[in-house]
């Protein structure tokens, strides 16, 4: 699935990474616990979270992820968007809740195994 399709499925606003929306990603994970992302994630390129702090972006960087989707309309700070942008991570904001957002992406074909 292209990042652009993720944005479309979630009706998401793109805060950065407009130029990489044609990138293909194959899997995603959803969590508000960064410790669990670091523990259980393997090659998932998209992180869906409702947690807003700079460690979300750092965690995505550590895991070589391509995109972070903030759910429940949570808006990252400008500092976080800049950190993501510098590291070629697209940032999306969706008003959907976590469960809905994951469900829409999963049924749209984005799995959880890379």
């Amino acid at each position: 699935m292209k990042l652009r399709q993720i944005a479309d499925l979630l009706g998401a606003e793109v805060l950065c990474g407009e130029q990489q929306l044609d990138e293909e990603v194959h899997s995603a994970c959803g969590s508000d616990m960064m410790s669990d992302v670091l523990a259980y994630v393997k090659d998932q390129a998209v992180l869906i979270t409702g947690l807003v702090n700079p460690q979300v972006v750092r965690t995505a960087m550590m895991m070589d992820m391509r995109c972070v989707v903030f759910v429940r309309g949570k808006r990252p700070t400008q500092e976080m968007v800049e950190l993501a942008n510098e590291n070629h991570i697209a940032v999306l904001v969706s008003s959907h809740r976590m469960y809905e957002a994951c469900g829409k992406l999963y049924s749209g074909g984005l799995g959880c195994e890379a």
Partner: protein
Amino acid sequence: MAETLRFHYDVDGDNFTSAGAASVEVKRKLRQLGFPAETIRRVSIAMYEGEINMVVHARGGTADVYVEPDSISIVLADQGPGIPDVELAMQEGYSTAPDNIRALGFGAGMGLPNMQRYTDEMKIETEVGKGTTVSMTVYV
């Protein structure tokens, strides 16, 4: 790269926002040096967890990274409270992190287990009231 490269970082214990900055820097350097992506990821996740631990539990500390062609070692040293029961601390899910840290997405009791999971060797030297030194090695 004939000699061991050494990188030293001071980890600021008062600033959760900047925690992980040293790991990001190491990741960037290892990329420049041309290490395989999987090796870089293992090193940087282990170091990141360790860095977060030092900020959460020990008011910061130091991180030293030794890079050789066939191995990367990370030594994290702090002068924090020490770990009274290492075996317990190594159990997945066991955490003493305060609620404000959990609210930030950490403190799931996965830090030390993750560090062990992503490295080939890990050694914890700790003394209650004195501090903790965690040494980890990843073979390329």
